[in-house]
């Protein structure tokens, strides 16, 4: 498609020498030639291949496990079950990585003790000479299950009489510790501001809708992997693809009954994570198999295992009610949210509750959220966890009100937009944010003004918010005699971050980014660094690199002062040159000085450690044009523009990449991705054939606008960019569908069958009702419906 506008725009706030440019990434050559080593690419000498036996039942007592035949199978060297784990029982909260966890849940999730809580729950592990022999061994393990009734949604799990999955669980509810009822509710939040009832009474228009969203998976192309060697020195050596080296290290150590540093975790390159690669899964199992066999053991999940037994993101039920005056001012908003936690606690409903009305300044708000345990794999974070579900609900209701009031949907949002000083219902007051700037950039974009031609075509907009994380990072920079610098950091590089981090160091030092040699290292070699997630790496690890660079700068100045025998305060370093503030002739390049270091006192190593508090939240907005085939319900994305406030784009190409990638995940979430569960609690579509992620043929180019509203809390103004862009697409697409064919979608995914049913229900397709009743009548005479697994 020829365009008369710029497809990717940076609305820059400030220019730098290195920051804001687009160098080739340092790890790029290895990645385009197949040389880069990802977790599954390691084959240590003597490595054995591990496989995990998994429960076929969604909820069952494990009465006995007989591994004797498997142990005798030729080519099998070890078998482990829960009884091989050193920690028994114990409902104990421990510190793991950057948070806390309950050790019983942590271990139980890795290998079931008395009950299987989801289909795919690990029951036993084997190590063998190759994967095929290991698979044969799994078939020889005899497990005696007593199948129990299961429950598969949050709403059902919260009903009285629902099977209780964790008998000892009590609701963590608003500080109330007196209740002692067994429950599946593992989380309860309630935020109240002002008086919503009064607010609704003043409204001229009130819209209330209920939504159901299906479970979806992060869908990283690289399945989980781990290679573990239990060394003769008693330390456990782990190599794997992970987003959180310290998280996995600490969780593995705790499960194995070791102190944290007895485990050394070396992160290899990682093939996607999106929040799903923070949990230990196979690592402790491989460790115990290695201990038993005396050899390294490698466990790689199949795609089916990955879909069925890692951490998808919560399905949810959300009810939203919003009221506004005819002048377009929102007077009240309420939300009720029920999110699935899966088999173990943490549903991200707390984050969803923060997100749901976050883009707006509303005086009267009530938000109540519940998280509930159910017999599905334990949910994990997926790029802005909790927010996409929430804003699908709220942003479509916002759109409906705007349409009812005949106010332009962007103008309606601008009338109510959150700004610096706006208080959110969950408490915090916004610092300088870019919500208004994003909306204005959307309004001014050629896409928004382009005429819409054709039948069944519609345009929708939506915005989204995400909190972003700070957390701890460490970095050291070593000056090499040739003027280059080695940079050591601990953030697995999931999308070009080692270069963005290097660029910040290079900017601070005034040297070219090609002169920085970054490395992502093991947990032995770098200070505690929180995981690669929460949109924090460019922000926090970049800041640690910046601090390390400042430390190098100070030492370089001091060294030059020693060489020149002048006071250090009389020198400065700018753009890679150390110079006297008084005598312009007295100067030396960084490179030259670097060559002098060994002879003048030794090498210079700078360090930085941060736990920054100045994190800035991010806003993103989408404009999307869709065409809906009213006879099939299929939605085609014709044009997509994403606008995001990025603070400062360190490497604009990779920032654009985040916007485009998150948007496309949001498109998949909106249109076709779902866990199709059988009544017995099995995922019927656990292959990439039927778990339908978008292909290149399903999409147009994704246009981007990087709005730079500098975050005052960061040296370069960075805001986290990775996550917020997955938040608006489902709502934007739903809003576009409503303009195209006149139906309001209340489910995710909005797959063709769902849109078709909505069209039939609405009677908008003149032929639709007739076809629908004919189809129904014909089906009735064919016999009963059956559901095939």
């Amino acid at each position, binding site marked *: 498609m020829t365009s008369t506008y710029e497809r990717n725009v940076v609305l820059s706030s400030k220019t730098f020498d290195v920051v804001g440019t687009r160098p080739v990434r340092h790890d790029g050559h290895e990645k385009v030639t197949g040389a880069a080593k990802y977790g599954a690419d390691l084959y240590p000498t003597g490595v054995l291949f591990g496989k995990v036996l998994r429960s076929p039942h969604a909820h069952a007592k494990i009465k006995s496990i007989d591994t004797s035949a498997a142990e005798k199978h030729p080519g099998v060297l070890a078998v482990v079950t829960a009884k091989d784990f050193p920690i028994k029982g114990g409902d104990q909260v421990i510190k793991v990585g950057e948070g806390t966890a309950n050790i019983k849940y942590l271990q139980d999730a890795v290998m079931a003790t008395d009950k299987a809580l989801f289909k795919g729950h690990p029951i036993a592990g084997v190590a063998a000479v190759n994967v095929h022999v290991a698979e044969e061994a799994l078939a020889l393990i005899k497990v005696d299950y007593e199948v129990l009734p299961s429950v598969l949604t949050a709403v059902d799990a919260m009903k009285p009489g629902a099977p209780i999955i964790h008998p000892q669980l009590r609701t963590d509810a608003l500080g109330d510790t007196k209740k002692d009822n067994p429950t599946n509710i593992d989380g309860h939040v309630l935020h109240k501001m002002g008086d919503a009832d009064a607010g609704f009474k003043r409204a001229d228009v009130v819209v209330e809708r209920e939504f159901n969203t299906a479970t979806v998976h992060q*869908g*990283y192309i*690289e*399945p989980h992997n781990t290679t573990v060697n239990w060394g003769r020195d008693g330390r456990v050596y782990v190599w794997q693809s992970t987003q959180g080296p310290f998280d996995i290290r600490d969780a593995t150590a705790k499960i194995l009954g070791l102190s944290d540093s007895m485990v050394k975790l070396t992160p290899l390159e990682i093939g996607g994570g999106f929040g799903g690669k923070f949990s230990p899964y196979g690592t402790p199992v491989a460790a115990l198999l290695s201990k038993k066999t005396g050899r390294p053991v490698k466990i790689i999940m199949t*795609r089916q295992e990955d879909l069925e037994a890692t951490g998808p993101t919560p399905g949810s039920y959300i009810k939203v009610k919003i009221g506004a005056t005819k002048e377009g001012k929102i007077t009240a908003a309420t939300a009720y949210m029920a999110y699935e936690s899966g088999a173990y606690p943490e549903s991200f409903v707390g984050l969803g509750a923060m997100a749901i009305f976050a883009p707006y300044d509303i005086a009267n708000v009530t938000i109540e959220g519940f998280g509930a345990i159910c017999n599905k794999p334990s949910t994990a974070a997926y790029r802005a966890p909790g927010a996409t579900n929430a804003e699908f609900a709220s942003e479509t209701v916002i759109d409906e009100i705007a349409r009812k009031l005949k106010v332009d949907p962007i103008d309606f949002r601008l009338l109510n937009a959150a700004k610096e000083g706006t208080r959110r219902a969950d408490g915090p007051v916004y610092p300088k944010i870019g919500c208004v700037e994003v909306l204005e950039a959307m309004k001014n974009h050629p896409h928004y003004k382009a005429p819409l031609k054709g039948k069944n075509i519609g345009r929708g907009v939506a915005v989204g918010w995400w909190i972003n994380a700070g957390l701890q990072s460490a970095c050291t920079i070593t000056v090499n005699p040739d003027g280059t610098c080695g940079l050591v950091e601990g953030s697995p590089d999931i999308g070009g971050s080692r270069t963005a981090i290097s660029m910040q160091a290079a900017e601070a030092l005034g040297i070219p980014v090609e002169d920085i040699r970054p490395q992502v290292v093991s947990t032995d070699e770098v200070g505690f660094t929180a995981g690669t997630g929460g949109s924090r790496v460019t922000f926090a690890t970049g800041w640690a690199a910046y601090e390390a660079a400042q430390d190098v700068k100070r030492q370089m100045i001091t060294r030059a002062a020693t060489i020149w025998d002048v006071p250090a305060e009389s020198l400065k370093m700018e753009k890679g040159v150390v110079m006297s503030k008084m005598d312009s002739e007295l100067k030396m390049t960084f490179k030259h000085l670097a060559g002098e270091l060994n002879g003048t006192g030794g090498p210079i190593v700078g360090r930085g450690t941060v736990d920054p508090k100045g994190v800035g939240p991010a806003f993103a907005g989408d404009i999307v044009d869709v065409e809906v085939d009213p006879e099939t319900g299929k939605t085609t994305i014709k044009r997509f523009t994403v606008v995001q406030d990025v603070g400062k784009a360190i490497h604009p190409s990779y920032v654009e990449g*985040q916007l485009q990638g998150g948007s*496309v995940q949001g498109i998949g979430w909106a249109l076709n991705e779902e866990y199709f569960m059988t009544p017995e609690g099995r995922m019927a579509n656990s*292959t990439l054939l039927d778990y339908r992620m978008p292909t*290149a043929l399903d999409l147009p180019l*994704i246009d981007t606008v990087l709005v730079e509203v500098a975050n005052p809390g960061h040296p370069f103004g960075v805001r986290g960019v990775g996550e917020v862009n997955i938040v608006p697409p489902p709502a934007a697409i739903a809003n576009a569908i409503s303009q195209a064919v006149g139906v309001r979608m209340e489910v995710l995914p909005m797959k063709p069958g769902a849109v078709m049913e909505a069209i039939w229900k609405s009677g908008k397709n003149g032929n639709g009702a007739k076809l629908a009743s004919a189809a129904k009548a014909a089906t009735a005479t064919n016999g009963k419906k059956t559901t095939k697994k």
Partner: protein
Amino acid sequence: MPTKTYVQTTINGEQVEFLCEPRQSLLECLRDILHLTGTKEGCNDGNCGACTVNMDGRIVCSCLVLGVEANGKEIGTIEGVATPKGLHPLQLAFLEGAALQCGICTPGFIVASKALLEQNPRPTEQEIRFWLANNLCRCTGYDKIVRAVMDAANRMEAAKR
């Protein structure tokens, strides 16, 4: 113990031989036996394209080819795309166009795109998207990948002139 099969094949222009079980896929043989780990496993059932190799001039999913079927064939993997002279225009275009984020799908895309450009030196955007529909990327949303393929096509056309 059942015996393995002897396979003789050509990989990236080099004669190679190995022993494998008939049930081992070409993907397993490339990775586990020959340690050519540039070709990746993403799904093991032909739906993601991360295991794409070129076999006798056509791109195939190596997870759906048995190792024994490679006998007598000419296989091209990602490791054979660059030459001692330098990177292929596709590799340069991917690097300069930032068409990779985590990079796990990149070998599959490069091998697949290379075959496209050999057959169709001036593909349209839609032809590129159709050809690459069997290659999944979860990080980039495909925008920069499609542009990189078009950029590589331009570079290769320019080099001919």
